[in-house]
Each structure stands twice: as structure tokens, then as C-alpha cells.
């Protein structure tokens, strides 16, 4: 049975695991964005936060992913459900690119434009939402793109602790020495990563300010 035939026969399972994978990546990216962008804005506006925020995110990144999954397993509420744990871990890994790019994006906005806005009487909130963020959007999105692509990859490891997703195919395939299963997990995961990279990259280009 060749690979396509295999995929066709097991399409329900493939679809289910792909959706599980998307769930893991989607929720964690959303959380990283909700937490990371404000932290990035904070570091950009108040440099005193720069070191602690970026420093912490950096430290988290250096922890090997499987080790982080392992650390979190014994934690009471988290360890009970593997997908909760995986989502938390994925969120933590997604933070650094989001925070760092938000910081860079906001700092990269032309100081003259910001000053003109201030001088015209824009409140700090208006300045942030109508000037700084729209102009930094492309760079921030670039950070989100990196976060998503990395998450798609990391989520395959999450299957090792039972969180499901396409990694499950890979681990099962490894245990059974079944290449088709491995590919059934690896190829959709690669496609997911590539399409996310491509579509977000396209969006980035469209949003780039002149």
C-alpha cells in the first residue's frame, strides 16, 4: 500500500490529529500574543523592563523542550491533562519571538512620527493603537510567524507526553518501525509549518509601511 493510499484509508485519523495539532498551536500562539505583545510594548516604552522581560523569555527558550514538558508533568492541575501542559509549554516557547519582535517593532517606529503625534495631542493610548502598533505590525507579525512555525514543530514532541497531535503518528510509527505512519505525521506537520510561514509572510509584506 503506497503512502497516498494509506493516507486516504486513514483520512479520518489524519484529519483528527491535524485538528488536534492546530488546536495546540492555535491556542498557545493566541496566548503568547495576548501576553507577549503587551510585555513587548512595556519593554519598548519603559527600558527598565527590557532586561528582565527579554532575559526571562530568553532563559525559557534555552530549556530543551522535552525537559520542559517533563518538568511540568508533576505540577498538580497542569500535569493532569497533557494538552493543558503542552499548551502552556508551547506558549512559553512562543513568547520570546513575540516579545522581542514587538519590542523591535515599536522601537523601530520613526521617532519623528511619534513626536508629531504626541505634539498634536494624541493620548498615549491613541498613540499606541493608532500610530505605533499599526506601524510596528509587520515586524510583530514576523515574530508571530516565527512563533507559529516553531510551535508546529514543538507540538509534534508534545505527543511524547500524550498531548496528541500529528506527533502521535510519528511516535507510533517509530515504535512499530512503520514508515508510512511516520510520514503520515511528519508530512502534514511540515505542510502546516510551511503554509503558516507562507501565509503569514504574505500578510507581513502587505502590512509593511512605506
Amino acid at each position, binding site marked *: 500500500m503506497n503512502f497516498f493510499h494509506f493516507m486516504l484509508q486513514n483520512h479520518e485519523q489524519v484529519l483528527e490529529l491535524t485538528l488536534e495539532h492546530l488546536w495546540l498551536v492555535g491556542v498557545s500562539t493566541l496566548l503568547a500574543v495576548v501576553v507577549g505583545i503587551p510585555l513587548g510594548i512595556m519593554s519598548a516604552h519603559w527600558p527598565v523592563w527590557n532586561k528582565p522581560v527579554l532575559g526571562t523569555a530568553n532563559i525559557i527558550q534555552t530549556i530543551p523542550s522535552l525537559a520542559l514538558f517533563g518538568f511540568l508533568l508533576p505540577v498538580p492541575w497542569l500535569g493532569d491533562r497533557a494538552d493543558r501542559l503542552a499548551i502552556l509549554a508551547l506558549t512559553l516557547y512562543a513568547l520570546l519571538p513575540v516579545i522581542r519582535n514587538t519590542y523591535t517593532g515599536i522601537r523601530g517606529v*520613526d521617532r*519623528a*512620527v511619534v*513626536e*508629531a*503625534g*504626541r*505634539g*498634536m*495631542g*494624541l*493620548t498615549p493610548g*491613541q498613540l499606541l493603537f493608532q*500610530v505605533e502598533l*499599526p*506601524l510596528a505590525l509587520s515586524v510583530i507579525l514576523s515574530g508571530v510567524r516565527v512563533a507559529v512555525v516553531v510551535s508546529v514543530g514543538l507540538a509534534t514532541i508534545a505527543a511524547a507526553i500524550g498531548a496528541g497531535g500529528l506527533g502521535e503518528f510519528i511516535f507510533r510509527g517509530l515504535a512499530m518501525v512503520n514508515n508510512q505512519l511516520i510520514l503520515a505525521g511528519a508530512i502534514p506537520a511540515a505542510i502546516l509549518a510551511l503554509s503558516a510561514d507562507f501565509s503569514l509572510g504574505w500578510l507581513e509584506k502587505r502590512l509593511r*509601511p*512605506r
Partner: protein
Amino acid sequence: MERTSANSPEIEFRDVAYVLPNGQPLLSGLNLEVQRGETLVLLGRSGSGKTTTLKLVNRLLTPTGGEVWVNGTPTAATDVIGLRRSIGYVIQDAGLFPHYTVERNIGLVPRIEGWTTERIHLRVAELMQLVGLEANLAKRYPHQLSGGQRQRVGVARALAADPAILLMDEPFGALDALTRDQLQREFLSLQQRLGKTVVFVTHDLREALRLGSRIALMESGKLVTILSPQEFLRSTEPLAAAYVQAFGDGLDSAANRGMS
């Protein structure tokens, strides 16, 4: 001179000082009055404190000593956002929002002040005509405009909410000589029509003589002297004289508003 509301100064600096957090003084002992409807030029070289002075008017900077009064009230006691919205601010290179069209740039303050779309639209059209921008540029983005056009948009934007005061920080500095000349002319005619109180920062004596009703010469954070253009040309004050000499010929015509 007795002060009545009719002749009270629009802007006042009372013994103002501005010192940086690291202790470096940018301004000291500044006493200055700007009368309603005049164009006061702050002239000086970089580091003289002229931009700092300008920014103290709309409280982009806060004085570390003394008080700045605008329209009879100390700026420290005024709501800063309201203050800034009632003052037009034009900077070098215009500082236009690159992600907004010309239209949205000009209409910014009216929009955040809550004007109706209709009213904003009419105002924008009016202003574009006033500063000499073709109506079809309304939907363009700043990067699609020339330097001169951008600066015109900057001025239109500053005038949008019809402020009484206009602050201009070397607005024509980045333009080529021809465009600069053109815009200076247009500024003069605009001033004649609108009668705004303008504080204009420049390092160019020619421009100062041409545009200012009075010239405030600044050096090292202190006000050296305030003179009318004609007085400035004949001044024996050492720094003023040095300026006149440095700028060479043809200043007369500048002092006479370019009628040569």
C-alpha cells in the same frame, strides 16, 4: 504696559529653566512674551535651546524652573492633551503618519476630537486648497509625495482644528532652495489671511528676517536679544552682528519680505 485681555501675550515664558536629568542645563532664565498674531522667530545654532523652548509651549517638555503661560493660564495647570490639540505643531520632514493617506493625516485631530465625517471632509478639502495641494492628492500616501508636498500636508494638519497658536520647528529645513522659497512665500500669505500666533524655529537668518515679526536670538540656552528684522540688521549686539556678517548679502530684501 498695563495688561488687558486685548493685549495680554498669547504665550509667556516667566524665568523658565530646563535642566536635563543628568544636570545639563538646556535653558536658563528665559523671559519671553509672544503677542497674539505675531510670528516670533527663535533663531540660533544647534544647542542654543530654541527647539527646547518651542517644546515647552505644548508641554512636550516640562520646565524644571519657572512657568510657561499660554493664553492666560500656566501650562502646568492645563490638561496637557487639550493644550496640545489647541496648538498646531509642525516639524521638519513633516512627521506624517506613513500609514495614513493625506486626507487622514490632515483630518487626524478633528477625528479624535469627534467631528462628524462630513465636517472633517469639508475641512480637509478647505485646508488642502489653502496650502496649495491639488484635491487629487487626498488619497495618496506620504511616500508618494514630494518633500514640498509633504510639508504642505504637515502645515494643513497643524491647522486642521483651527488652533490659535502654531509651533514650527525648522519646517522648511529639509527642502531644496526653490521649494523652500515657495513655501516661505506661501507662509507669509497664509499668515496674512489667518493671523495665527506663530513661534518659528530656524537657524537661517534669511528665513528669520523674511518670516518673523520679531526675532529672538538664542545662544547656549539664554535669550540674547529680541529685535525686529530691521533692528536686527542694524544691531550692534555682537552675536547678532556676527550672524548678519555670516549670512552676507541680500539680507535687506529678505527683511523686506522678499520684495526685491
